Structure formats: C-alpha cells, structure tokens
C-alpha cells in the first residue's frame, strides 16, 4: 500500500482536526450543566459531528474532490509573513505599542514581499515612504478622526 499523496494527507489532517473539534464540542454540549443552556448547542453539535466525521472518512478513503491543499512552495512563501503577522498581533501590538508595532510589521512585510530589488537604495527609500504614508493615514483616521485610544505601552 502506497503512502497517501501530499494533498490527501493534508485533507486527512485538516478534516481530522475539524472532526476532533466537532467531537469536543459535542462532548461538552452533552455533558455540561445546566442542560437547558446547551439545548441549542447540542442540536448544532450533533449535525456538526456527523458532517465532520463524514468529511474525515471521505478524506481517509481518498474521496475528497474539493480543495487543493497547500504546496510546499506556497507554505514556504507564506510562512515568514504569517510569523511576522502573528508576532505583531499576539505580542508586539500590546507589548511594544500599537503604532510602533504596526510601523515595524508593515515595513518588514513590505520588504519581505516587495518584488523590487533589495540591493537598490531606491527600493528602500520607496518602502520607507510608503510605510510613513500609511502610518500617517492610520494615525489620522484612528487617533484623530475616530478617537480610538490604542495601547501605547513601551513605545507609542
């Protein structure tokens, strides 16, 4: 028996996670009290777990027709951006300060994915100008126009 191809394996893992969530949701819905508060979640969880197990079974049998999964190249491309975005959202925005973190994250993401050559000074000047322009617009919109008070923390 040959090993499953990458998309099939991905489908098994993906639908397996969804099925596991469905089972946990169903378990909580049927065991937590007061039962009246879980009447509707039970109804949903029952359908959820049936559909999720059906999808998982189809993935295991190799019957999944929809969804291309992620190729190694796509994953390698998205990983640096995703890591920067997650650090920015889950740590830097609160820890460093909203505007500082956004400026740094914006500039890093721009530099990571901008097709302009990294060795050209012009590219870096353009990136700095775009970052400064974007932050000026964000500050004007949120801090001045909408009066949103964002976490300032260590920096701004």
């Amino acid at each position, binding site marked *: 028996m040959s090993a499953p191809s990458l998309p099939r394996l991905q489908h098994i893992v993906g639908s397996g996670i969804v099925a596991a969530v469905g089972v946990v949701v169903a378990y909580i819905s049927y065991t937590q009290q007061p039962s009246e508060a879980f009447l509707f979640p039970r109804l949903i969880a029952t359908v959820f777990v049936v559909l999720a197990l059906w999808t998982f079974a189809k993935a295991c049998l190799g019957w999944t027709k929809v969804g291309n*999964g992620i190729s190694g190249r796509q994953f390698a491309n998205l990983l640096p951006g995703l890591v920067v975005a997650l650090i920015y959202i889950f740590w830097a925005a609160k820890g460093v300060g909203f505007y500082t973190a956004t400026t740094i994250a914006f500039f890093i993401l721009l530099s*990571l994915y901008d097709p302009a050559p990294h060795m050209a000074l012009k590219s870096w000047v353009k990136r700095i100008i775009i970052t400064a322009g974007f932050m000026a617009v964000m500050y004007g919109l949120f801090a001045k126009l909408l009066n949103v008070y964002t976490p300032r923390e260590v920096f701004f």
Partner: protein
Amino acid sequence: MEFLFYMGDVFTPINFGLLLLGTIGGLILGATPGLSPTMAVALLIPFTFQLEAAQGLILLGAAYTSTVAGGAVSAILLKIPGAPANIATTLDGHTMAQKGQGAKALQISFLASAVGGVFGVLLLIFLTPVLAQWALAFGPSHLFWLAILGVTVIGSLDSKSVVKGLLSGCIGLWLATIGFDDIMGAQRFIFHPALGGGINIIAALIGLFAIPQVITMFAKGRHNDGAEVIKVQKHPISGAFRELMRSKRALGIGTATGSIIGLIPGVGGQIAGLVAYDQSKKFSPDREKFGTGHSEGVIAAESANNAMVGPSLVPLLTLSIPGSPTAAVLLGGLLIHGIFPGSDLFDNHPDVAWTFINSMLIGQILMCIFGLYVAGLAARVAQVPQSVMAAVVLGLAVFGSYSVQSSMGDVYVMASLGVMMYFLERFGFSAAPLVLGLILGPIAEANFIQGSMIANATDGMAPYFLGGRLNILLIGVVVASILYSGYMELRTRRYTSKEEIIA
C-alpha cells in the same frame, strides 16, 4: 410611495458627502484585485461606529454598489476581475480594450451597471415593504427555520462541496454560541478569557474575509504581479449611450437575470454575470462575436451583476436572510446599530430603512457619473503591488477590529478566525456559510428556545417545529436546496471526469 418622503434625507450635506465618499472609494477599492466587495465592506464597518445608523448604512451601501461596478475597470484594462462578479466582463471587455476600445468598454460597462443597478434598487423599493408585512405572520418556529434556511442555502449553493458548505455553516452556528448563555447565564465554550463576551461579529467578519486574503497574497511570494494597463483612447459618451440603446436585448437579459438571481439567497453576482452572459449569447443573432470583444457581452455581464445588488437585500431587510456574502456583512452593520431587519425596521426605523434604500438608488447614478472619471485612477490603483496591499489590509484589519470595543481580545479573535479560515479554504470550506452561521446563530437560538417553551406548554416539540404549512414549506426548501446542490455537484463532477477522459 413612502420612499419618496425620505428622499430629501439623502441630500443632507453629511449623508450626501458619505454617499460620494463610499461611491468613489468603492470604485477604487473595487478595481483593486484581491479586495473583494465583501472584504471592502467588512473593513469599512469600524468606520461607521461613530456615525448614525442611516449614515453608516449609506457608506456601506455605496461601497457595496460601487465595488461591484469598479471591479469592471481592472477586468477590462488588466484582464484581472476586481471581484468574482466581474469574471464574465473580462471575456469581451478586455478584448475590446486590446482593440483600442477600452474607453468605450468602460463607458458601456458603467452605463449598463447603472441601468441594471437602478432596476434592482426599484425592485428592492417595491418588494421589501410587502414581504416585510408578510413576515409579520412568522412565529418563533418559522423564524428558526428561516435562519437555518439562510445557513443551508448559502452553505449548499455557495460552496463547491455541499457537505463542506453545511459543515462551515455548523462551525459558524457553534461559534455563535460561545460566551454566556442569554437565559441561564451559563458559560459556554469559553476556552480563553478573550472569548468571555462571545465572538464579536465585526471582528469575526474582518478576520474571516480579510486575513485569508492577506495570507493568500503572502503565499504568492516575491513576484512582480503588476499587470500592464492598456492605455485608453478618448471615446464620446454619446456613442456609448447609443451602443447601449442598440443592445436592448443584452441589457434586458442582464437586468432580468441579475434581479432574479439576486432574490435567491446565497447566489452571488459571479453567477449572475456568467448566467446573463451565457443567456445573452444564446439569444443574440451575433452569438459568434461573443468573446471577440463584443459590447453585448460587457453589457449583459455588467447590468446583471449590478442588478443583483438591490434584490440581494430584499431577503436581508425582510427576513434577515442575506442574499449574498456582502449582504451578510451589511446585516452585521445593521445589528451593531441595534437595528433588526424585518417589519421592525420599516415600522420603527423607516427613516433609516428608506434613507439607506434611497441612497442606493442615487448611488447607482453617482457610480455611473464618477465611474467614467475615476476609471483611469482606479486602473492605476489596481497596479499596486500585492506586497503593499497585504500589509495595508493587515494593518486595517488589526486597527479596525481593535476599534470595535477597544479590546485586544477582538484582535486575537479576528486573527485566529482569519488564519483558521485560510487553512479551511485550502481544504474546500468557504467563509460565506460560516459567516451566515455566526450572524444567524443568535436569531436561530433565540427562536428555538422561545419556540421550545411554547411547544412544551402546548402540543410538544415535533408538532410545533415540524407541523403547519409554513414550517413544512420552509423545511421543504431547506431539503430541496441541499438535494439540488448535491445533484449539481455530482453532475459537475461526472461532466469533469468525462472531459478528463476525453482529454
């Protein structure tokens, strides 16, 4: 003719200014590949908090209308549809541009969009109050089934896989139950303190629609995607108008098809444009010219996708069932202002309802006027590199979701849902049914609980929820939509397999 009474409200300085802003901004956003109308409207919602309900809806409605039309600019000049609704426009629009008729293609596209759009909004004006009164007869069991219908129709019709579409809807319905239960005050599925107050709809909408798009742009890597814009030569507007008058058949087919498809919950503009294009080709004596830069192709596609906009709001404003994913986001925009669709909207907030609807009517005309002038600028914006777009959308998503309640918890929820949705989309799940589940979940649960209380005091659960003509009709539609989608999925698969064998 109640709508005429509120027509003047559209022209107050603030309202008209917002309408202009939404229209021009929407045209530019719509032309930007990767910024779908749904995502554009979701990102705009945080900016409406400080506005009055009618003002916020004017801004969102104008953006909805003009992003659909703006998508034609990049479809014609770059061969990249600004939104899925503009796919059919590229077929003839871009070929026209290549032949040096770019200006003419843009002009007839905006004129056709305006004709289709005005007709669609007129349908909205005349159908909505009638249906809203009809909705008064609905009890808790009917409203429960209607909410379920909204999820299942979009889950089955809007997804490539019926099972995965319905599963997405179930995930949305489950997410809607997170937080404290309204009646008993019990904690449900609060795995993290950020979930204590439940999932904020706006943060969720931003995450589900914007973050997967950002990650998709990341996944493309460092590559130059700046497509070349075809230069546009001047063309007299009167010529485009005459062309439109000569193509009455395509205009009629497009407008009628778009209006009908818009009324069916879950069927979006993408289908409207393609169906209208196909039907127009079938009925045209010049059918062999379609695909070679024939203006009728552009007219049919563009009149259809804008005619869909107004009718897609009919089920939303009367029955709380959005006709398209963007309409689902608009429902979120209504709910944050404490306004519930249905007869309540027209009885208690007629000023809000009619000012919003009237603004969409005026917005169609403004979209046509400004579209012709903004097209050049919009085409240039469409060339903005994906690296800039990804970083801008991420920044807007973070600031937008934070500004909802000044809570980092909402930002975490937005990011978590967005990353989850990106991976789910790669496995064939879609965001629209999940969003519908999340929005309609509280409506379904409240009516289920209320209905079960009535049922326990009367005939019991089964006769109350499964008996009665209206319940049976609604259950029948739920089942029929699932069976129909299942049948279509099987047929498409069989057809694709046969083509693969032949190839």
